[in-house]
């Protein structure tokens, strides 16, 4: 090998292993590079992200408005339950990180030196690194609360989380937005929360965690739906899993249970919503279905159309086919199944993705999607990509579309993925 001329010697920079303590900006440096090359001028709204609030669970527990439950929560926090105090998630069955292979799931990133609340600092790092203008944050650890046998706990935690979100987190950065947690097992408590927060600018919608067995068409919810419809803000059903459900308890791998359960709960709720003609009774209520991917949507459209055509007497409130009502709803993109571009394209056409699809990252969960999952789809027009990445969300959630993020190039200059 000839000797290299020192002046022409290449610059070699070593990159470190990425793990659970790696700075978000380093984990996402490739996404920042993608933003710089491919979508820096796009307006991007991320409808579903989870900055892990369990690290700040003590702050949420402190805001519980019932002395007894607060006492029990704080007692558990310092003992066996730790950051899962009062929650019904089962840490031993939370295998999302694939044995630690995916470090950002449940990460413990040092946040010393960030300005403001560390939650906000971590979220800002993620938003800047991915090139997001806005991000809607959602609680991770509370996703299973709908299955908690103690309704009172869902109510006190829901109220405390909403206070923490609106009083501690959202005021610190108006690029962060929230969807109010609705303790759906107790409709009266939901109504009271909607009435209290309807005018809060940081709250851009309401969320029900889909993992639960409540029939969404029940009359116990009609007042709640009317209040939400009147507020002009959308209602989102955020799906999840529940390995304790007897059907899913047959599945012996996390991946199998995860693949089926996240689509299952939203399929049940959409089916009840449509077959009971709720869109006819609440025509202005904007419905958003979160984190079930996309492949289930064309399946359910065809399946329900097929059944309704044969049994119209069982869905007498419908004046259109189920697929037509489904085309009026909104869906978030992640986790977007794309091993077959033909199927994905057909599915997107079926529900009108150009106007009805909302980009979501689900960061920092293990199956998150970068904005490039949309910009790289070969069959979408430039306008469709812009709609899906942010303009549809701006319409649904009433967000201004001026640029809020720093230039990707500047983000890379400040922190070039050194690890």
């Amino acid at each position: 090998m000839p000797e290299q001329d020192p002046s022409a010697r290449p610059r070699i920079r070593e990159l470190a292993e990425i793990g659970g303590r790696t700075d978000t900006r380093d984990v996402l440096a490739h996404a920042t590079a993608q933003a710089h090359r491919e979508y820096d001028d796009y307006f991007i709204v991320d409808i579903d992200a989870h900055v892990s609030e369990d690290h700040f669970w003590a702050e949420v527990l402190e805001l519980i408005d019932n002395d007894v439950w607060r006492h029990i929560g704080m007692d558990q926090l310092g003992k066996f339950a730790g950051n899962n105090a009062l929650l019904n998630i089962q840490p031993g069955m939370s295998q999302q990180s694939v044995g630690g292979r995916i470090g950002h799931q449940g990460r413990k990133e040092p946040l010393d030196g960030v300005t403001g609340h560390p939650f906000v600092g971590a979220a800002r790092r993620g938003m800047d690194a991915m090139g997001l203008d806005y991000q809607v944050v959602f609680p991770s650890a509370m996703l299973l609360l709908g299955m908690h046998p103690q309704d009172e706990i869902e109510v006190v935690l829901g109220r405390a989380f909403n206070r923490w979100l609106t009083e501690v987190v959202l005021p610190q950065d108006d690029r962060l937005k929230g969807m109010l947690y609705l303790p759906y097992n107790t409709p009266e408590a939901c109504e009271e929360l909607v009435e209290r927060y309807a005018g809060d600018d940081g709250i851009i919608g309401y969320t029900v965690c889909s993992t639960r067995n409540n029939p969404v068409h029940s009359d116990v919810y009609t007042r709640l739906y009317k209040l939400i419809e009147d507020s002009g803000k959308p209602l989102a059903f955020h799906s999840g899993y529940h390995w304790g459900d007897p059907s899913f308890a047959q599945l012996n791998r996390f991946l199998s249970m995860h693949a089926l359960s996240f689509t299952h709960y939203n399929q049940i709720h959409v089916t009840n919503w449509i077959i009971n003609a709720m869109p006819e009774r609440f025509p202005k209520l904007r419905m958003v279905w979160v984190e079930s991917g996309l492949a289930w949507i064309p399946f359910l459209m065809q399946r329900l159309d097929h059944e309704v055509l044969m049994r119209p007497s069982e869905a007498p409130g419908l004046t259109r086919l189920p697929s037509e009502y489904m085309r009026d709803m909104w869906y978030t993109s992640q986790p977007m199944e794309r091993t077959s571009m033909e199927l994905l394209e057909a599915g997107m056409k079926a529900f009108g993705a150009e106007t009805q699809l909302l980009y979501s990252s689900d960061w920092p969960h293990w199956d998150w999607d970068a904005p490039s999952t949309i910009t790289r789809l070969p069959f979408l027009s430039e306008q469709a990509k812009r709609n899906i990445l942010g303009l549809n969300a701006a319409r649904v959630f009433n967000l201004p579309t001026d640029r809020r993020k720093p230039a990707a190039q500047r983000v890379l200059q400040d922190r070039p993925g050194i690890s």
Partner: protein
Amino acid sequence: MSAAQHEIVVAGLADLEERERLVVEVDGVELGIYFHAGEVRAWHNVCPHQGGPVCQGKIMPRTVQTVREDRKNGGPAFHPSDRTIVCPWHGFEFDIGTGRHPSAPGIGLRPIPVRVQGDDVIVTIRGDQPGFPGR
């Protein structure tokens, strides 16, 4: 060799043997260099899935399914010698030696020519190579 490509010493062999993996950026191209089973390999640090920093993830033994007598399930086990590169973004795994995904051999890492001369590990980088971060 075309004018657009050049050879670069990126590591010492003894050092690489000890560390098993080294990830570097050379003039804007990111790559992982691996020593495994007496062989040296170099792969672009760009995952075929979403462009993640694949070489910066964990290195794990490949997980295999064992089968007991009468075709009964013997449970998962770590392969005694096969090692995989795990992408830290979503967990795609790739064999260190072949660069192929264990369940989908059609999906794989992009190789970078690499050779050893004495103690030098030398890679060939092409200026027009699509190996820039996240591509």
